[in-house]
């Protein structure tokens, strides 16, 4: 009995020693303070950027944009196009699986694309050109177009805002007007639904069944390797609190670090600051109501706004903004500065005189918590300086986003102008461009109406090649300088602060967390 007791004691001690000798199997957790909160897990029913970013965590796409803006295959192994450009065949990679370990099939792809095509603008155009979209076999999808359409790959590799993410067919069967509730996806991370607390925390785990491409990660394309076990998005509305947490090492990444905090962070050697995503500053005018229903006055504002002066109100660091004399992003293949003339106050005054402006009130809306609020103040003062009657109205984003839907005259709760900053992918090319759309009532708030621009946008989709598309983009630029659907106030970067010890953080135009290791 004593011998047995002794043996047991020895065995227990040995086991205890072994356990202490083993390295702890701790999970690596990447803690991120995202710029907003997640409202829904359905990236198809809303264009909300937070939902899009969630989409990139849990879903993969057929094609994706690399850091140079080129469209690269992602879930697709290979694709072919018939000589007449009408039949497209896509073959999926081997071993693709959803988070429930079910294989990704062509039927899932067809269902996902059809649902996306009901909601997204570019998707609707693609589906409008589609004669049939079918699963030929388990791994092959065949798309037959009614007529040649030049943006098939651009649509399938669309980076923002409603992205053609691939989800299981049973989930994609949810009507496109209803939110999906099942987070099963096809991407490098799985959402831990049970730990989701709206307004507090969203948790993702590495998806062990995900098969990354063999190429290195590049932008949104390439091998999406989850190098951490867990990613936690910790919602922190207060920027100062987030900065404290970053400095104390309680979080690893602070998305959208306010520019006035950059200097504070740079003095800390353990913290690094880097570019997160590019935006285009947009001053949008209401073209349904006086005085901005007058194109001459819009031209006057285009000559008035000095990008350098306006953007420096946002950030006083030349590496974080660019004067970009174009309606397209400066690094877009469709960039053109045709027709653009530099800011000139005297010329602006002359154009105001020619416009017949008679002191009508210009209601300038400003959401004071947004990045472009200081720039709005600069624009307001510049307009006052040339004799315009500006009624500057400060409010929160919730009020502004509702107010800008009003088509009423300013005296009845309407508005004249506001500043906003759409993300680069939404200002990249003419078709998906948020603010160039000039299809009247269906255009973005401000409702520009220009048949010429709309015809050019339609022609862009059928242009035979890149050179053809660039030529059309140039014509759109020239026309936009005349009709002024909006004022580009320059290009600027949102920045993120992060622990300098992090490796592999990608600059992909939006925040993505594969390839990152701690």
């Amino acid at each position, binding site marked *: 009995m004593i011998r047995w007791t002794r043996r047991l004691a020895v065995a227990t001690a040995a086991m205890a020693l072994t356990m202490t000798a083993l390295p702890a199997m701790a999970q690596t957790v990447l803690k991120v303070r995202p710029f907003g*909160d997640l*409202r*829904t897990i359905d990236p198809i029913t*809303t*264009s*909300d*950027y937070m*939902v899009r970013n969630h989409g990139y965590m849990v879903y993969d796409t057929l094609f994706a944009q690399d850091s140079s803006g080129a469209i690269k295959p992602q879930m697709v192994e290979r694709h072919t196009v018939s000589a007449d450009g009408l039949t497209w065949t896509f073959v999926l990679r081997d071993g693709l699986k959803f988070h429930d370990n079910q294989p990704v099939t062509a039927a899932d792809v067809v269902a996902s694309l059809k649902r996306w095509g009901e*909601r997204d*603008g570019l998707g609707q155009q693609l589906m409008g050109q589609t004669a049939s979209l079918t699963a030929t076999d388990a791994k092959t999808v065949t798309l037959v177009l009614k007529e040649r359409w030049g943006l098939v790959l651009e649509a399938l590799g669309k980076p923002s*805002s*409603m992205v053609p993410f691939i989800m299981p067919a049973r989930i994609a069967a949810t009507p496109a*007007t209803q*939110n999906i509730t099942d987070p099963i996806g096809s991407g490098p991370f799985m959402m831990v639904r049970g730990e989701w*607390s*709206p*307004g*507090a*925390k969203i948790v993702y785990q590495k998806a062990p069944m995900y098969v990354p491409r063999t190429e290195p990660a590049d932008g949104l394309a390439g091998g999406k390797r989850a190098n951490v076990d867990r990613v936690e998005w*910790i*919602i*922190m*509305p*207060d920027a*100062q*609190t*987030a900065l*404290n*947490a970053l*400095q*104390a090492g*309680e979080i690893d990444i602070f998305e959208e670090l306010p520019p006035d905090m950059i200097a504070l962070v740079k003095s800390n050697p353990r913290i690094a600051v880097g570019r997160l995503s590019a935006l285009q500053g947009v001053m949008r005018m209401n073209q349904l109501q006086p005085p901005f229903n007058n194109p001459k006055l819009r031209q006057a504002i285009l000559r008035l706004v000095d990008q350098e002066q306006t953007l420096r109100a946002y950030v006083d660091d030349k590496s974080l903004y660019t004067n970009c004399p174009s309606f397209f992003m400066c690094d877009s293949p469709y960039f053109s500065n045709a027709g653009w003339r530099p800011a000139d106050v005297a010329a602006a005054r002359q154009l105001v005189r020619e416009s017949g402006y008679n002191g009508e009130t210009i209601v300038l809306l400003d959401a004071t918590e947004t990045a472009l609020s200081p720039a709005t103040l600069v624009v307001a003062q510049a307009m006052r300086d040339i004799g315009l009657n500006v009624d500057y109205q400060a*409010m*929160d*984003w*919730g*009020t502004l*986003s*509702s*107010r800008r*839907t009003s088509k009423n005259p300013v005296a009845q709760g309407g508005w004249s102008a506001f500043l*906003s900053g*759409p993300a680069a992918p*939404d200002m990249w090319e003419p078709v998906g461009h*948020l603010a160039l759309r000039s299809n009247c*009532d*269906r255009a*973005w708030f401000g409702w520009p109406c220009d048949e010429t621009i709309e015809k050019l946008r339609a022609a862009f989709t059928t242009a035979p090649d890149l050179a053809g598309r660039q030529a059309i983009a140039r014509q759109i630029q020239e026309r936009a300088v005349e009709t002024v659907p909006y004022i580009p106030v320059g290009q600027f970067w949102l920045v993120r602060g992060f622990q300098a010890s992090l490796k592999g953080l990608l600059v992909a135009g939006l925040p993505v967390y594969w390839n990152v290791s701690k």
Partner: protein
Amino acid sequence: MMLYVLRRLAATVPVLLFVALFVFFLLRLTPGDPAVLIAGDQATEAQIEAIRQQLGLDKPFIEQLLAWSGRILSGDLGRSVFSDMEVTRLIAMRVEPTVLLALVAIVMALVIALPLGTLAAVKAGSRTDRAVMAFAMIGFSSPVFVIAFLLVYVFALGLGWFPTQGYVPLANGLWPCLNSLILPSMALAMLYASLLARITRASLLEVLSEDYVRTARAKGLMPLRVLVRHALQNAAIPIVTVVGVGIAALLGGVVVTETVFNIPGLGRLTTDAILRRDYPVVQGLILIFSGVYVLINLLVDLSYVLFDPRIRY
């Protein structure tokens, strides 16, 4: 007594009804449209309208009010327009941090304020009295967020004793939970402690000059016994009243404290819901807050019996 309690409880019904109607009207008068915020920047007017229909926001005002009132009567606070989660579930998820934060803050405030207020009263006019009153004045007039950031700067970023933000649930252990609540509770307790210290001093000063206190001293009772048994107990009613009233200030302070310390409680839920025009959540929260406030006032009234046997209900 029971009749009194029942009568008071019955009286809360019209109060809550009035609060509910007031909040409903106020929110509808606030500029902003939840459907627009939900739809995102690129939504078409048709998509926004579809969301408005889904949420029932396209219906006439009276129809919305009747539908909401009907649901409230059956105990259903509706669903969040932001997350589509049941409001009761959302609130239930956020109750623990707020209740614990408030409790720890109240305990801290009482532990700080009662001895300081008593000391100031006993040593009225002395340097100690002036120091205590200066502390109370500074605490009362400093905004919660200023105190909060100072505490973070010194104790979290400087000394590294506490985390700068976040909340550890009680289920993860008592000490980790308390550790995450110490700085926010201190920030929250400052205002409350200042108020209580001043009231304690004022009440005690009044009571200490009463004849029965002089008699107690003349009988040769120990000064501590005179203070605790005769003076403090008789000074308790104004103090308890302020404890109750102060809970309203505490609820206001919770909103700021939870934001600064990133505690996912009811205060954060309230600010988030207001910014998102999440009408059902704001309405549900205000109802809960007013219910709690009414209940605390009732408890304060009932507690008078304990301190003054002459009071009968």
